[in-house]
């Protein structure tokens, strides 16, 4: 059984032998967070507390299993919000204590990598080592080498904002609501991606590191140099009427220059990501590329990755496994269980837990 409560989602899943998902339950908290334009920690831990028991129960029920049939309970130990992580960790410990089950600690980023590993295995096309993994979401933009063992080596990461954070901040600035990624991705298709010539970040030091704060500032500058107050007010009004507007409704309150800006922003983010993916894959002699995390659902990113001549096959998670879920936590725990890498009851939440 896997349990995940590191940020937005309370999730539990039952996975057989690290590859067959018997159940995967995600109680999304997006509804709770929507009005605040971001994750609110107090609400997050309170919501996790409310959801954890029914979510775990439902995961067992859907899998047709009882808790005592589990080989182990795996839980995300970090990185994430401490209060949220603690809910999952404490509940996992209680389950293990009550049923004498082994407890396994999983790093959230390792989970995202294993979302893809699990699916590849299930489709009978296991991922070849070494693989290059990009985990990209609201909180993370990390490049790892994923080698046999599994062993991980960090090759690069963001020095300022995560890619998903840049999407969220641009969306908030222009009143497109939260989260920013899906809506910008959809509206970008209606704009000219070459209209606003954003410059790519030049990294001193490690060329595989990322930076998105310069792009964010460039968007702020673009917005400030125009009078967008009317369309921003119209979008606020739309969001107040309907928290989930359709693409048509958004298009009715968005000017062509703003659509062009979104398309140009999205193209720049994708370019930043895929350039480093290609360079890193080359550098480690990767035999597979894993793109995972919430931003891996971005349609523009997927299309561009398919179009580009990358040195090896690219694997994406299916949409249910791209965002936070517990099946990936159970999958990442499977090799640990086989090696006897269990945790004891002193396990604690670590906000900044590092994978490598």
């Amino acid at each position, binding site marked *: 059984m896997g349990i995940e409560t590191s940020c937005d989602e309370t999730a539990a899943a039952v996975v057989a032998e690290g590859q067959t998902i018997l159940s995967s339950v995600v109680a999304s908290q997006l509804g709770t967070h929507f009005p605040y334009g971001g994750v*609110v920690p107090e609400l997050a831990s309170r919501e996790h507390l409310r959801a954890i028991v029914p979510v775990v129960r439902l995961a067992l029920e859907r899998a047709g299993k009882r808790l005592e049939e589990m080989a182990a309970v795996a839980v995300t130990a970090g*990185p994430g919000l401490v209060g949220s992580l603690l809910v999952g960790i404490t509940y996992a410990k209680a389950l293990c204590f009550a049923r004498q089950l082994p407890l396994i600690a999983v790093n959230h980023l390792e989970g995202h990598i294993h979302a893809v590993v699990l699916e590849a295995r299930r489709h009978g096309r296991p991922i070849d080592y070494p693989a290059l993994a990009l985990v990209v979401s609201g909180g993370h933009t990390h490049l790892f080498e994923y080698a046999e063992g599994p062993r991980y080596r960090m090759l690069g990461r963001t020095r*300022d904002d995560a890619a998903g*954070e840049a999407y969220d901040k641009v969306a908030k600035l222009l009143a497109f609501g939260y989260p920013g990624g899906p809506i910008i991705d959809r509206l970008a298709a209606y704009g000219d991606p070459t209209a606003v010539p954003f410059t790519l970040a030049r990294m001193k030091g490690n060329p595989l590191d990322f930076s998105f704060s310069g792009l964010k500032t460039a968007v702020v500058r673009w917005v400030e140099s125009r009078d967008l107050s009317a369309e921003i007010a119209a979008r606020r009004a739309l969001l107040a009427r309907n928290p989930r507007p359709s693409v048509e409704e958004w298009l009715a309150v968005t000017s062509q220059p703003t659509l062009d800006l979104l398309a140009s922003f999205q193209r720049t983010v994708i370019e930043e990501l895929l350039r480093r993916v290609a360079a890193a894959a080359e550098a480690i002699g990767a035999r597979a590329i894993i793109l995972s995390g919430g931003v891996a659902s971005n349609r523009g990113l997927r299309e561009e990755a398919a179009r580009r001549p990358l040195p090896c096959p690219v694997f994406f998670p299916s949409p249910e496994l791209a965002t936070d879920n517990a099946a990936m936590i159970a999958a990442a725990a499977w090799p640990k269980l086989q090696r006897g890498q269990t945790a004891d009851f002193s396990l604690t939440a670590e906000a900044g837990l590092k994978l490598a």
Partner: protein
Amino acid sequence: METYYTGSEEETIALGERLASRLPRKGVVLLIGDLGAGKTTLAKGIVHGLGAAEPDEVSSPTFTLVHEYGHSPKVYHVDLYRIGRAGELESLGLDELLDREALVLVEWGERFPQVWPEDHIEIRLRRLPDERREIRIE
């Protein structure tokens, strides 16, 4: 009050490094400025100036809310961008952070004036039309 001008990210980091020696080992610094003003960039310099971490290791705490650097001196880098109400600060354990022997750098903290100790320092950052940054210490 002092005012500085920086012309690039590197200069903003260098200014933070110089300012670091003048900041208390235990205390609160509010970094105040709009999106893209350079708050996280200045924080990189301050954290590095104190010898708590390399500038490249200091990233935006928007998602995780609190980043922790070094041991002695210890620096907490807090970002309240996502916090809507003061009541939500409690579960962050902010009171506990403020009690520790550490320098606490806070982005988007000016919205909760009642939370900070009276002797806190404010650094205001502004992006000028020519892309330089004006940085005022109060």
